């Protein structure tokens, strides 16, 4: 089968999944439960995607753990996103050099 067809199907399905709720939900949701649920969803998604995957993100659990600790500490003190992200990476890199 042509690769182009696969690519078109992939892209179309992914787009429609994103587009339908984003485009056609323009009323404010009244239900207190659903509004609370939608407020919590981003934090729940990010947390579930980060833990425990972050500990495998550098290929070495020790360098990843050091990077994680640095990220949590800097985030705790409200450092900007880019600072937290790159400092975590730098910490993992340096730890790898030391080990």
């Amino acid at each position, binding site marked *: 089968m042509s690769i182009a067809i696969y*690519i078109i199907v992939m892209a179309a399905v992914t787009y429609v999944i994103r587009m339908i709720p*984003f485009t056609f939900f323009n009323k404010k949701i009244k239900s207190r439960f659903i509004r609370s649920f939608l407020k919590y*969803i981003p*934090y729940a998604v*990010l947390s579930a995607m*980060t833990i425990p995957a972050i500990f495998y993100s550098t290929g070495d659990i020790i360098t990843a753990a050091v990077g994680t600790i640095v990220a949590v500490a800097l985030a705790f003190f409200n450092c900007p996103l880019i600072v937290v992200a790159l400092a975590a990476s730098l910490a*993992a890199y340096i730890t790898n050099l030391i080990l």
Partner: protein
Amino acid sequence: MNSRFIKGISHGIPICLGYLSVSFGFGITAAASGLSTIEASIISASNLTSAGQAAGVDVIKTGGTILEMILVQLIINIRYSLMGLSLSQKLDRKFTTPHRLLASYGITDEIFAVCSAQKQPLTPAYMYGIILISMLGWVTGTFLGASAGQLLPPSISSALGIVLYGMFIAIVVPPSRKNKSILFVTIVAALLSILFKYVITAITSGFAVIICAIGAAAIGALLFPIDDEEVEE
């Protein structure tokens, strides 16, 4: 130029950097699966998603049916529906239907995370800025990965693997510190995720994220429903 657009670009720079390294890996995988550099780059430009693309390339490589491709994309990417629904609640009035049709292309985990952390309503210009810079990083990384193979030494590319997660932490920790209910939801989601990783291993990772997120957010919504004033912020 529109200041909201510039702000979007600046908020997208960390995403762009993270995407460069992740999509570099995708480019290498796609090339190893027999796709050309152009095909891999087109997949990245048209899909803008990591897990879905990796699974899609697998379907192509194994000569799977179109139905299989549809189901795989649906299952792995269904979380974007939840994200789109969540974002739809905080759009500025400038977000008319054509803008919604266009901007929905760019709902990714990271873009969603940064957008939902914004206090003000989202404008089209802001979202276009963040989507544009992120997409450039994603496609450029794919192109480089597929065409040039390993450009970076392994010590650097492996350390870059933590960049996106570091960004997630930077988004989740500050509100968790201020708000106990968010902290609660974050911890429940993490515990469920650990459960799926080590105990209930039959569930694929895409499904696991959906179940953990729905479960934790629903428990949070039941135990700590938000007040009406909080919605107005």
